[in-house]
């Protein structure tokens, strides 16, 4: 009796592990299919998509600061930090890659700080982050026309990027929502 029980158990285990292995194989196959599809995509387009993801997070962050929304700014920054890490530099020249790596390292640190700070501190880091993102766009380019805007009052004069030519000030928020002007238009 005891022996019978043991062998049934062994059989069950075997079947289980077999189906498991099959399942895994299926999953692996799905993966390779996915990778194939990925490969087919235009590599240039993928790169733009990653830079655009960074820009899109940056603009959500900017709007959060315009709205004095510390919590949203923090959440978006955590997302931005992840987007920054995901950028693919392989299509650029060696010099550009070096510069991009430097920009990303700096920007990531600012994003991480914004993710865990009160609003005044978020704005300090947003200023430095804006410089990084502007320098990044100079290398990666942009899908949409962007506007570099400038507020002469915040911290001896501070820049930021916007998707629209309307000025909405991320450094003062509701205190001085329209302080600033467009100083440069970055064509797509």
């Amino acid at each position, binding site marked *: 009796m005891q022996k019978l029980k043991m062998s049934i158990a062994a059989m069950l285990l075997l079947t289980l592990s077999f189906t498991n292995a099959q399942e895994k194989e299926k999953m692996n196959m799905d993966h390779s299919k996915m990778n194939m599809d990925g490969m087919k995509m235009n590599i240039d387009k993928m790169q733009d998509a990653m830079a655009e993801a960074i820009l899109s997070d940056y603009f959500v962050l900017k709007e959060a600061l315009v709205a004095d929304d510390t919590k949203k700014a923090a959440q978006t920054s955590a997302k931005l930090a992840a987007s920054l890490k995901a950028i693919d530099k392989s299509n650029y020249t060696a010099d550009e890659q070096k510069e991009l790596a*430097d920009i990303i390292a700096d920007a990531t640190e*600012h994003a991480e700080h914004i993710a865990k700070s009160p609003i005044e501190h978020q704005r300090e880091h947003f200023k*430095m982050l804006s410089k990084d993102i502007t320098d990044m766009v100079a290398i990666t380019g942009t899908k949409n026309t962007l506007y570099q805007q400038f507020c002469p009052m915040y911290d001896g004069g501070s820049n930021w990027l916007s998707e629209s030519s309307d000025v909405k000030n991320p450094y003062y928020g509701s205190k001085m929502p329209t302080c600033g002007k467009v100083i440069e238009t970055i064509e797509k």
Partner: protein
Amino acid sequence: MKILKIIALVLLVAIVGIQFVPTTRNQSDTVPETDFMLVNNVPKTIQKKLEVSCYDCHSNNTQYPWYNKVQPVTWFLEGHIKEGKAELNFNEWDSLSARRKKSKLQSIIKQVESGEMPLSSYTLIHSDAKFSKEEANEIINFITQLKDSL
């Protein structure tokens, strides 16, 4: 009453026990070539001030107080030092790119300006680490100059 005795005994055992947990000490005999003081022309007074007020947590060498040997103080300090060095390590200053140096300098200015650094939990015991208003201004001016020169 009996239960109080048991609690006291358990606590005592725990406190004695944690004294034996090994810890890493942040100490080094050498100052690397990348040190902030070696690559920048820092005036003597500011050099002294930075060493006393910042280097304990922002370099590879901490001047430990005696009570550091007592747990859980050791853990508390260890955490601060680890975090401090991750943010900024003056010993490794010159390994940073110009962009990152500027960011760090800007953050130093803001931290000193707002009085967030040195930490109040640190100056509570290290009263010599406190910045007077003049000292803070002197440091901010120097760091601003350095930042503009990069």
